[in-house]
Each structure stands twice: as structure tokens, then as C-alpha cells.
């Protein structure tokens, strides 16, 4: 009888110990997760640098009349092309190829953007003419204040294909 009791006692002590061990291991995992979280947060690019530059993100391109119809003007500082279509509308296209991120030059002879990396081509509106690029070129928000064209480069707008509502028209035209 007493033997059995002792056994039970030992068992309960054992399970208490294993319970505590489990708690310790659990806490260890929590600590590990915390460490990984802190390391990731540390390494992940913060937003501070972007907000500090925010006031510079709106780029004044110039008066709308300055841009001839059916033309492409490169803005190196904003990393975009300001496109004026033949109907007078404006588009600000990102110069980054949507395939793998190469810089796409405007080939005026062919009237196309031709990516040198994997030969994707885009038309003047940024729509894909030939793959492998999966999407049309990204655009930036264009707005026209007092006939001056401005481009907000803070946020790139992703689009799968070209649609007419992407074009911004000057009011007077």
C-alpha cells in the first residue's frame, strides 16, 4: 500500500518537474521569437527616411505647353518619364521594367520603350507590346496646377494594363 503511494508521489513530482521544464522551453521559444522579431524590425527598412524626403517627392515638370504632343521627356531626378500623348493627355511612367527592374530607355526611332535586359517592349502609354514583362509600366500621380504639370513620385501606382483613366488632361485643352 505504502509502496504504491510513494510511487504515486514520485509520479506527481515527476509530472510537476516535466511541467516546469515545458514552461521553461516554452519561455525559451517566446524569447527566441522576440529576438527574431527585434532583429527583423531592426533590419527592415524604416519609413523615417522616406518621410524626411517627402516634401521633395512632388516634382514640378513645367508648363503643360512646354511638352509637344506625342513626346517622351525623361526626368532623371524623379526616375520617371513624362509622356504627352497625341491627344494632349499626360502620363508619368516609371522607368523601371516590370519584369526584373532594369531601367527602360525610350527608343524614339521605334516609338517604344525597349528593355535591354530581357527585351520586353512597351508602347508610349506603357502598355506591354511584347513579354516577358507581365504588367504595364508603373505610373505616378500627375496633377496640373495653373497649367503647370506636377508629378508626385512618393507613391508608385501598379497597374496590370493601360486604361484610359490613367491619362490626365490639362483643363484648357
Amino acid at each position: 500500500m505504502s509502496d504504491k503511494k510513494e510511487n504515486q508521489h514520485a509520479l506527481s513530482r515527476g509530472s510537476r518537474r516535466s511541467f516546469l521544464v515545458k514552461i521553461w522551453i516554452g519561455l525559451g521559444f517566446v524569447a527566441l521569437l522576440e529576438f527574431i522579431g527585434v532583429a527583423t524590425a531592426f533590419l527592415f527598412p524604416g519609413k523615417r527616411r522616406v518621410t524626411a524626403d517627402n516634401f521633395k517627392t512632388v516634382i514640378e515638370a513645367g508648363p503643360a505647353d512646354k511638352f509637344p504632343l506625342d513626346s517622351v521627356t525623361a526626368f532623371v531626378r524623379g526616375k520617371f518619364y513624362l509622356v504627352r500623348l497625341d491627344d494632349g493627355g499626360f502620363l508619368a511612367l516609371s522607368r523601371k521594367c516590370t519584369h526584373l527592374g532594369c531601367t527602360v530607355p525610350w527608343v524614339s526611332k521605334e516609338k517604344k520603350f525597349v528593355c535591354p535586359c530581357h527585351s520586353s517592349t512597351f508602347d508610349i502609354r506603357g502598355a506591354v507590346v511584347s513579354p516577358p514583362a507581365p504588367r504595364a509600366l508603373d505610373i505616378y500621380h500627375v496633377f496640373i496646377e495653373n497649367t503647370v504639370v506636377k508629378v508626385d513620385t512618393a507613391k508608385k501606382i501598379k497597374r496590370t494594363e493601360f486604361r484610359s483613366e490613367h491619362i490626365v488632361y490639362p483643363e484648357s485643352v
Partner: protein
Amino acid sequence: MTQHEVAPKKLSVFQRIRYSVFPGTQRPVKDQRGYRRFFNSLILHFRPRTVPDRTLRLTLSWGLGGMAVVLIFLLIGTGVLLKFVYEPFPGKAYDSILHLQRDVLFGQLIRNIHHWSANLILIVVFLHFLRVYFTGAFHPPRQFNWVIGLGLFFTVLLSNFTGYLLPWDQLAFWAVTICAGMLEYIPGVGLWLQKLIQGGPAVGSATLSNFYAIHTAILPALVITLMPLHFWRVRKAGGLVIPGAPGEIKGTRGESVPAIPNLILREVVVALVLLACILVFSVLFNAPLESKANPGLSPNPTKAPWYFLGIQEMLMHFHPFFSLFLIPILMMTALLGLPYIDYNTDTGGVWFASPTGRKTAVVAALTATVATPVGILADEHFIDLANWADHIPPLITNGLIPFVIIFAASAGFYVLIKRKYAATNNEAIQALFVLFLVAFLILTATGMWFRGPGMKLMLPFY
């Protein structure tokens, strides 16, 4: 007075220093041999006391593992030297390389050694990987060491890739840009991962400091941790796999010989010959350096580093979801799983498993040599599924359909080999391995030599 008479000899200060550093040399000649044995035991902390005579054959290991170790130490040595001159900032990195090459004595040589060793180690570890596979040195108890080896291979690959960016020339900048672009296609976490690695929306100063930290701290630490683990598992498995002729009864280790001098001498010879070759090569050929990185101008053509050209070539034919995500993940899983397949026999030590294995391997190699170029050319010139079926998304026309065709063809090949040659699953799986291996090598060669401006197919040097 008596004390002076007892002392045998008065030692000069130089002798006292010498004996304090090398206590054994003070002993009589007969004891010095014992001292030599003591010194050898230092080596024996790292190498086994005796090794099976048959594993010493060069045609078993080709000294590839040893070469990789030598290259790692060479890379760490030259890398530490380069750290003293290199400045990891976009405005300064390129100029610091120029300064290294022009003004620093032996600067160019040190960079050359680092560059060529880094390229060579990839080839050496790849050949080592093939050697281990084709001698069946992944059967129990070596299963997990195969996994550790793959980990080391991956670490070496990442080291190469992170080092690729550091010179900050056009080649480096754009190769890393398109490789970072590839991450975007990983579903779910791709964009997040890309931003984390780049440290921002595009390759820039944050990317450079990230890569520098990974290249000079994290990956070397990982290599130095994994390497001893890899060697220790070899020791635990009883040394290298015992080579044998096909059909030979297993379990005979044969005669063992002392590692000193039999093993050590061979290792030293391999190391010295390798060092001499690298030194001569580095004196003759300079590491490439193009013009300074210009984020506004992508060179034509822009290619990934050569070891990723196989993946880049796949990218020309498959939708990115398949070529950059699904196929690499499947291949990686298959490689990790290779030692855990339930095999018919343990073929450890036999090159290409058996005579049937040799025959089926050749058949697989020939099949891939014919099928891969035919596939590439057909896809380039004739097949345009995306245009034929306009309304179906490219994920299906350019991804799922070709993927299913290739998957079915590979499965058919496996069944065919098994039936026609009455092959065991060791031999049939090896044939599949060879099929994919040769296809990958041909894809890499195509990306390297047959892709010109605009990534168009063309003959090299033409």
C-alpha cells in the same frame, strides 16, 4: 655553490626563450622522437589516426573536399585583407576598388586571388556534390551529412552572390538588380523579402551595407560552423565511403594505414598544387571591373551572375512563378530528399551504382543533350502559346502547360528506363538526376554563351 655545480649548463636568454616555446627540443635525441609524436598528435586532433588504404585513391574523392577547405581559408585570408581597403558606400565602393588596384601594393593580386578563388570554389563544391552523389555516398549513415553539404553549398552560393555586388560596377549593380527583381515573383512574401534584402525600394546604399554585412560576417560565420559539422559527420561515418567494384560484397574495409604520412601528405600535395595554380592564374588574369554603376543605364545585355544563368534561361521560357519559384523549390526539395528515398540497394562506393546505372546515366545524358537545345529553339522560334491562346492568362499558357508537359515527359522517362533496362530505383532515380543535371548545365551554357544583345539567341564569338 653546490647548486651551481648541479645545474648542467647555463642557458642564454635566447635558449631559454626557445625552450619555453618548444619544450621538446631540450630533451635528449631519443626523447625528441617522442616529442615529434606529440606534435603529430596535434594533427591527429583534426585527422583520423588511421585510414582505410582504399579510400586514399585519387579516383574516389579527387581531393575535391580538401580543395574546398583550402579555398575557404584562402578566401577568408584575402577577404580580411580586402576589408582594410574596401569602403561599403555607393559613392566610395568603386573608387576604393580602383585605389586598391592602382595604389595598394599587391592590391590587384589580392583581389584577383579572392575573385578567382570565389569562382573556383563554386565549381569545386559542385563537382564535390556530383562526386558524392555518383559514388552513392549519401546512403545511411551519411544521409544527414548530405543535407549539411547542401547547406554549405547554398552558403557558398550566397557568399558569391553577396560579394558580386560589392565592386559596385555596372556588372554588379545590374546583375543584383535583376536577381532582386526575381524575388518579386515569390508569392506572398516576395515583395516583403525584396524590400528586406534591398533595404529599400531599389538597389542602393542600404543594399550595399546589407550585402557587406551578410558577406563579411554572417556567411563566413555560417561556413565556419557548418564545415566542422560536415567533417565530424564524415569521421562518424567511418571516413570516406569505401570504393568498390559493382557487385562486390559490402563490409570489407580492407587494410588501414596510418594517416601520417599517407593521408596528410596527399592532402598537403593537393593544397600546394591548388595554391600554385591559383597564384599563377591570378598573376596572369585580372578580375573584371567595368565602369561605375549607373542606375539610369542598364547595359545590354544584362545578365545574372554565371551560376544563376540556368535560372535566367528558364525565365526566358517559363512564367516567373514557375521558373523562379515552383521549379527551384521542387528541385531543392528533391535534392534534400534524395538520401531519404527507400532504395532497393545500398550502392555506396560504386561509381554510378552499377553497370546498368552507367548505361542508363549515359542514355539520360544523351536524351537531355538532344532534348534541351531542341526545346529552347522550338520555344524561341515556333511555339508562341501565349499568342495562339490569347484569352488564357500567361500563368497557364507560359507556365502550367509547359510545366505539365515537362513533368509528364520526365515521369515517362523514369518509367521507360525502369522497364527497358530492368533498372532498380537507384539506377532509375540516378538517370532522372542526370537528365535534370545535364539539362541545367545546357541551360546555363545557353545563358552564358548563346545570349547576345537583347537576350536574343546567337552563336558565340560570331
